[in-house]
């Protein structure tokens, strides 16, 4: 190597030049191959060192991914518009978190999960295609598809839980409460890789909520949400068909009105369906049709109350839990019962001044497994109606109207002749209207999870806990900001200068 000073001949110089060129090309090639192998193949690994292991997948997710026998396509369509006045940008960061965790899915699925992140501002054509192909209506959604099966997940409805704080979220940025990304994505992959597509029937003929209607009091958003869960929603006239079809994964009875009537054959058909293990989600208003109370609900083990649950707390509505009305409220811990359906609802949300919802309880003499899903606060009371079609005075009469926590929504697994059936009771059909679903993501989440539980797609084997987000904040007293600045930007550098002086003096000696 060290022949320094030697004068080379022309041929030798050429040889050296070629040698250098080859070596450089080889070095760059080795680097390129190394980067490719470690960054774009199965050799790639990510080591999550966060305290909460925020970027690691649960072992159950890894099992689902490891057992995939068909390709799954995951497309994110995120419009990364920063939220005004939010220094930490939790809105955009939640999108980053989703795309980041999807990288982990991609790596763990060994090529079975293909992830495409679309930026609507840049990928115009692809975004348009995806909107048309999956019938998307807005940005900030994730599509999980496999063949004809698909599920559409919303950022703030499925993937993350935000506290928007007020009717006018622009006033202050949202607060990120928890991520449900792994639960949502893993369940979606699990669902779309199954062949069957659930058919859910909605009973018609009694002025029920119309799942075809996009009006405020319609139910199109609920139908779309269930469709995004890989389910087909079909109307069902029990009068016309005389029975619930065998392919019914679940039946929805959404707010039959007081003015309508259930024929005997309808009651018989519904009863027969439940006796063969049917799944029913029923939303009945306190002043709605109560013809099924005696013939259907009580035999199942449900006792529907006629009262309206009220209380008088005032405050500011917070959170994204289930609600019926945007009314003043306050924190009321413990409002959600422990159940698979309520697992992703956060328990510190709003309380209703008047919820216009009826209570429900387990009918005496039944051994059905009754679970309270949503409870009113302790200081609520049940206001009895004046008549079958008229509310009470919305004030508590202590003589006849007792105070205390009441069950608003419940899940029931009957026994005896109805063994195998499942029922979810919702105390007001307004919970499922487009108007409320638009305003309360918790309503959609609750109803979707309720239907999912009924259908028994049950991600029971892959129920994953939400990733709660804790924010560590310090409060610097007024005036101490200057001290921090002085300590970090002045004193420490001055220390370095003092060292420079010491070194200079030492060297002079």
């Amino acid at each position, binding site marked *: *190597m060290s022949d320094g000073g030697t004068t080379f001949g022309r041929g030798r110089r050429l040889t050296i030049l070629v040698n250098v060129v080859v070596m450089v090309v080889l070095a760059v090639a080795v680097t390129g191959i190394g980067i490719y192998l*470690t*960054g*774009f193949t199965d050799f790639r690994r990510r080591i999550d060192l966060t*305290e909460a292991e925020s970027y690691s997948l649960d072992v159950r997710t890894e099992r689902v991914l490891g057992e995939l026998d068909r390709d799954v396509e995951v497309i994110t369509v995120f419009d990364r518009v920063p939220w005004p006045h939010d220094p930490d940008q939790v809105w955009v960061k939640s999108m980053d978190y989703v795309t980041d965790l999807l990288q982990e899915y991609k790596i763990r699925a060994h090529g079975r999960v293909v992830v495409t992140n679309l930026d609507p501002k840049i990928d115009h054509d692809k975004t348009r295609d995806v909107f048309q192909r999956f019938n998307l209506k807005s940005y900030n959604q994730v599509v999980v598809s496999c063949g004809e099966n698909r599920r559409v997940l919303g950022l703030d409805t499925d993937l993350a839980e935000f506290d928007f704080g007020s009717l006018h979220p622009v006033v202050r940025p949202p607060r990120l409460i928890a991520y449900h990304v792994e639960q949502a994505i893993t369940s979606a992959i699990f669902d779309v890789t199954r062949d069957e597509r659930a058919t859910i029937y909605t009973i018609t003929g009694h002025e029920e909520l119309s799942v075809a209607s996009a009006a405020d009091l319609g139910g199109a958003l609920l139908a779309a949400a269930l469709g995004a869960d890989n389910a087909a929603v079909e109307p069902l006239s029990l009068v016309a068909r005389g029975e619930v079809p065998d392919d019914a994964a679940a039946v929805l009875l959404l707010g039959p009105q007081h003015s309508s009537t259930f024929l005997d054959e309808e009651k018989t058909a519904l009863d027969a369906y439940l006796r063969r293990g049917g799944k029913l989600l029923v939303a009945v208003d306190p002043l709605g049709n109560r013809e099924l109370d005696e013939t259907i609900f009580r035999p199942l083990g449900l006792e529907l109350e006629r009262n309206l649950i009220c209380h008088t707390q005032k405050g500011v509505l917070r959170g994204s839990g289930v609600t019926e009305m945007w009314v003043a409220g306050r924190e009321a811990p413990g409002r959600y019962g422990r159940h698979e359906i309520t697992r992703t609802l956060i328990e510190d949300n709003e309380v209703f001044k008047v919820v216009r919802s009826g209570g429900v309880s387990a009918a005496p003499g039944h051994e059905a497994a009754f679970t309270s899903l949503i409870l009113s606060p302790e200081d609520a009371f049940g206001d009895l109606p004046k008549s079958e079609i008229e509310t009470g005075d919305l004030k508590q009469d202590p003589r006849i109207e007792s105070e205390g926590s009441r069950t608003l929504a419940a899940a029931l697994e009957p026994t005896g002749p109805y063994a195998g059936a499942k029922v979810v009771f919702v105390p007001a059909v307004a919970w499922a209207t487009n108007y409320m679903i638009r305003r309360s993501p918790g309503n959609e989440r609750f109803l979707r999870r309720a239907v999912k539980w009924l259908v028994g797609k049950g991600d029971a084997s892959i129920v994953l806990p939400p990733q709660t987000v804790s924010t560590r904040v310090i409060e610097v007293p007024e005036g101490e900001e200057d001290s921090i600045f002085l300590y970090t930007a002045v004193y420490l*550098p001055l220390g370095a200068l003092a060292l*420079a002086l010491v070194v200079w003096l030492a060297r002079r000696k």
Partner: protein
Amino acid sequence: MKGLRSLLVLTGREVESYFFAPLMYLVLAVFLVLNGLAFSFSLLDMQGNVDATVRSFLGGSILFWINSLFVPPLLTMRLVAEERRSGTLEGLMTAPITDLTVVLAKYVGALSFYVALWAPSIAYLLVLKSYGALPDGGVLLTSYIGIVMLGALLIAIGLLASAVSPNQIVAAILGIVFNLLLFFGPLLSSQMPRGKLRAVLEHLSILFHFQNSFGKGVLDTGILAVYVLGVFVCLFLAVRAIESRRWA
């Protein structure tokens, strides 16, 4: 064994040359001023959110990138170019040590001082702790790993620039230009449609590395490989560049 001993001796000499040079403490002072400003502004901007402050200060602020992109070339500019200009490089080349030893010793010396530049920033944690909160330990660890990896790469680039430059001013300018290209080049990908080129550019973006890996508490082998292999190529080319003087 002998080679290793030579490497240690030479490295010791290089490290000494940094830590016993008053000028380097001036660099340290300027570096600390910028770091201190970055920390104070981050804490203020993030309204006391400790984790967000750390993310901003260690990879998310402009001052961080000014420090990261401009300081390494200043540390490395004289390494080979100055020795060449003053004629001491010839002495090194006639000594019974390999060119690789020379390059590695200079590299480790510069990297040691770069790490020393960042070491006082750990004191900022004491500030946070005094107010009752510490950031996520994992994020902190990976952020500092990222800083060391970034420094390792940029110092290797600076060393290469110094090895191919006639004097230290040209070396510094060349190093800074390289670094700016490395920083801004891949950012063009954000304006490109999805595709392989965009994926490659994103994979090479040092800003993305901090946003998507180091700053999140995640170590990605694919990203680490970019740094390790980048250092390997730069040092390899630096050795070739020094060696080429023998061919003249």
